[in-house]
């Protein structure tokens, strides 16, 4: 499980894209991710898995939080967004997620 807490993102609107350099498979609601560059294995919890699955580079993090997290977990959007920011920063620092201020296209 990713537990690293990172600094909130600077960009007002953030788009997230899954890295091409990882392998990923969902097992029992949690996402297993292995980096091809250093063979590190990660496991994302259920919430992080929702964000990972929605990281298509085209949907903003704000929309992902609103439509996936708040809808699923009945949490207020600002709290959820702050948590999501910290999570995606952590994943980006580990090289398994890419951040951008513009929409991109996601492909493996």
């Amino acid at each position, binding site marked *: 499980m990713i537990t690293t807490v990172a600094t909130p993102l600077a960009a007002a609107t953030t788009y997230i894209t899954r890295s091409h350099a990882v*392998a*990923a498979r*969902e097992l*029992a609601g949690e996402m297993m991710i*292995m980096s*091809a560059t250093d063979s590190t294995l990660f496991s994302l919890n259920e919430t992080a898995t929702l964000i990972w699955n929605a990281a298509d580079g085209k949907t903003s993090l704000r929309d992902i939080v609103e439509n996936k997290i708040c809808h699923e977990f009945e949490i207020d959007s600002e709290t959820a967004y702050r948590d999501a920011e910290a999570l995606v920063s952590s994943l980006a620092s580990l090289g398994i997620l890419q951040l951008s201020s513009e929409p991109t296209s996601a*492909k493996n």
Partner: protein
Amino acid sequence: MSLITDLNRKALDRGVPLSVHLDVTYRCNERCEHCYLEHDGDGEMSTTEIKSALDQLAAAGVFFLTISGGEPLIRPDIFEIIEYARSLGFNVKLKTNAILIREREARRLRELNVEQVQISVYSHRAQVHDGISKVPGSLYRTIRGIRLLKAHGLKVTIANVLMKGNLDDAEGVRQLAKEVGAHYTLDPTITPMMNGDTSLLALRISSESLRTVFTDSTLVGSVEEFCAPPTAIDEDTLEGYPCSAGHTAAYVSPWGDVYPCVQFPLTCGNVREQNFLDIWKNSPQFNEVRAIRGKHLTTCSSCSHLGSCTRCPGLAWMEGNMRGPSTADCEKSFIRTNIPTANMLKRGYTDAQAFAASDDTMLQPRLRGASRPLIQILPAR
């Protein structure tokens, strides 16, 4: 508990096939003298059929995918297959002899984020390696491929199969691996051919040589730990299952046949005719394999080595009984510890050399047999 242990436990509890070994062809550009395959390519799966199989594996939850052969790079569509596998999220490991890897191939494998490449090297000396592969110049080309892969940042493992012909070169290959920055494994396992021909077993190193390997700390790490006497059998051991074959791992042949393991060629179904997940969940063969616990093993359940033996159910099956002993592993357990196994005592042997030299070693495989490293010895760091 480590993440990988946790992952395996979750997969086991939920009946998920976490790892699959897919041989995309049995054709090969080498003719290694210890190879268990016949290199027939007739009727192997097309690109479309392999992609369909990969779709099925992904849907079943497979995460770790080993692509091997034969020589997988002999297929002109190999990069299309790997690219498709990566698009489905698999962690891909490639097994190759690297002869066909040049700059373009190395770059492509890096671009596709193949997690690691395993390459067989039998000696650091061309006359020995090429003598085993039966291809002049093969060591040169294999090392060239390894260097290109490393230059592109890929993780490479050099796998050495120890047999009579290269017995003196284990250290030379280890030094070669160190020089090129590769991981290194050494495996003394030689198994019968798929067609049942047991003549390959003559290539096995002697019990005495195996003992030398098992007591070499540069190869096995702590000899005291590696050769420790077996621990007492407890309830967990008796209720435990022999290995991951059929529990969290499976094998798919170039023709789509599904086995519990490459070393356990018990046909459970075929992905050309039946969905992989259906085979995995409902095949009587898989269910029979899964039902076996330590306490169900004939002979082995009363063996003091039960908890520490590397017993291979596939090799046992090839000897005639998937619940029976795997004789080659009996020998290894004895050589490591100098404590006879229940199988040896039952057959009246207390001496490993007499046991290994006896005609009942490995017997006659009743069906097609295959092999992959059974014991891997990691070099001391």
